[in-house]
């Protein structure tokens, strides 16, 4: 089992700069074998945590994107009906019992994320993304899978987990989750990174950016987030923007206000926000960070 510092270092090695609290939570996940629920606004890097975790453990990332109306067939398993139909036709006139036994065998089973996650030879990272978008019924069902790590398929019997996956759930609060699910999970509230951490992220992820520019961009984005915007830019937006600035060979923000204003499309994604951040506002913001 890795300790906190090792986890943080390895995450940094694959380009994810984690704060100590998150590293602790990830360590606990392994220690107590509980899922980790990460809550935070869109764009704070919730999904990235799972991707980075899969990288440092050198294992598969199995992702289940939740949406309304998600059910067992989408998440657990499904029979391959077309093949089953063909098989029934091919064996027409044969022994009916044998045919039934044959078409409900592993060959005709299609794995969906949850079943796949418990049947890996090496424990994978299972990312259940935006669990708040799924229905409450699915939440209850998920709870059952996450506590037993076994799945029963009526035609096949119970399938036990070969390995227990590391489970990460993310939510950005469009619906309140049940207490049962919250109790089952460890919890981490992820916020936008502070200037320092965001600058580190930029250095780690944007090739060719120098430290001074990274710091300026991080400071500027911090200011922009404090403006009265309808959609607050996330880390992905910062990365895009920094890459755009590097691509335009901007080395310092001051004196490059044209480029900054023109590339704001990477950051501001609604019309109101765009009209709110005028060239004058950009000047003011650059003046503060330079």
């Amino acid at each position, binding site marked *: 089992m890795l300790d906190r510092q090792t986890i943080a270092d390895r995450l940094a090695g694959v380009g994810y700069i984690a704060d100590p609290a998150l590293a602790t939570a990830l360590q606990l996940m392994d220690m107590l074998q509980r899922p980790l629920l990460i809550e935070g606004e869109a764009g704070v890097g919730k999904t990235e945590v799972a991707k980075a975790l899969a990288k440092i453990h050198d294992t598969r990332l199995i992702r289940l994107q939740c949406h*309304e109306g998600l059910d067992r067939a989408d998440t657990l398993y499904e029979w391959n009906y077309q093949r089953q139909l063909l098989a029934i036709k091919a064996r027409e006139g044969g022994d009916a019992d044998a045919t039934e036994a044959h078409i409900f065998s592993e060959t005709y089973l299609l794995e969906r994320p949850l079943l796949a996650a418990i049947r890996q030879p090496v424990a994978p990272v299972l990312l259940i993304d935006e669990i708040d978008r799924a229905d409450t019924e699915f939440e209850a069902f998920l709870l059952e899978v996450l506590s037993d790590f076994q799945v029963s398929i009526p035609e096949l019997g119970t399938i036990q987990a070969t390995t227990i996956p590391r489970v990460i759930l993310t939510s950005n609060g*469009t619906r309140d989750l049940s207490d049962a699910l919250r109790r089952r999970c460890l919890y981490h*509230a992820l916020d936008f990174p502070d200037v320092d951490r965001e600058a580190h992220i930029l250095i780690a992820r944007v090739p060719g950016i120098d430290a001074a520019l990274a710091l300026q961009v991080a400071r500027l984005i911090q200011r922009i987030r404090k403006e009265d915007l309808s959609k607050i830019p996330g880390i992905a937006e910062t990365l895009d923007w920094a890459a755009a600035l590097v691509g335009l060979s901007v080395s310092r923000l001051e004196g490059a206000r044209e480029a900054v204003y023109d590339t704001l499309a990477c950051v501001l994604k609604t019309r109101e926000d765009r009209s709110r951040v005028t060239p004058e506002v950009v000047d003011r913001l650059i003046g503060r960070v330079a």
Partner: protein
Amino acid sequence: MRPNLAAASDLGPAIRRRLAGFVRTLRDNGFRLGLAETRDALCLVAASGMNRPAEVKPALRALFSGRRSDWEAFDVLFDAFWRGERVKTRVAVAGANVSQRTMRSLAEPDRSSGTGGMPIDVSRGSDASDLPTDPAARREGASRTESLARTDFRKIADPEALAAAHALAGRLAKSMRARLTRRDRAARRGPRLDLRRTIRASLATGGTPIELVRRRPRHKPLRLVVLLDASGSMSLYTAVFLRFVHGVLDQFREAEAFLFHTRLVHVSDALKEKDAARALDRLSLMAEGVGGGTRIGDSLADFNRHHAARFIHSRTCVMILSDGYDTGAPERLGAEMAALRRRCRRIVWLNPLIGWDGYEPSARGMAAALPFVDLFSAAHSLESLMALEPYLARL
């Protein structure tokens, strides 16, 4: 691998008692913790060696928190507990819900000292310093400018008449819900084929799908979000409306209620109390600004910004119960109404003044809001509320 329980039993009884005490404190402050969490915490502390409490703080925080409010309150509680002084009363943190216990102790004034058994339904003056509670547990953000006078909802009419009104409201809400769900079911047939069930059924006929099974549509139940104006100008109606809202919350599977005057308060939890009298007790405490001015625009802005994403989906009807007298700028109200309109399916504005003869929606705020309202209707009597049912059923 999981640290085993043997390790946990190595801990001295003192530290175990102390940790149990900490868990109890957290529970008192609204954390939902079971035995499993305590056990895991013991293992964790045993595994870490526990030289200083600060070392295990991040770990305990991840383990014990379940939601953002827990996450934010944890630091304060942890420090208060492990730095010596025990927190007996709850430590209120901005944004945390007012716990049931505080509400109850407030609602039973006899236990408190100093007020001499003054019943809670006596209206207090603006001097609220003798409130039988610790200052930290008072509603966050209540400023001096807001009227602290508490209007008792039960005092407005005689209790019997009000109970009758509530019963009627409850019945109405119930019938509304029953019809809504029945119509929902009757109205839609799923067009999509359920291949899984079809094939399963076809086994009986040698693989020929004779009986087609269709996928049942999953429908979102209609959600009702009620925003109730509890300002001074509405005080004559607030009591009845509150009863109505309580009835609705009781009966609808998905309903949320907010109260606003100078600011917005989320009151669903208080109203979900089964006992009507107790629910109203709790409410009258939460509505401390009742009787003051109204800032509808600001309250709506607050709703749009902080609550809308969570409470509004595509089948949500927002019901605003207000007379439209806004002390804020009408432009602000108009803009927020427009934003709200984009999110939800319908906006119903119930205005008790419509029942008055010769009423025109001439108040500037009301006029600004009107273009975004789908149904603008009277609400001065229960009959007028009942007239809404056919409209809601069509949503």
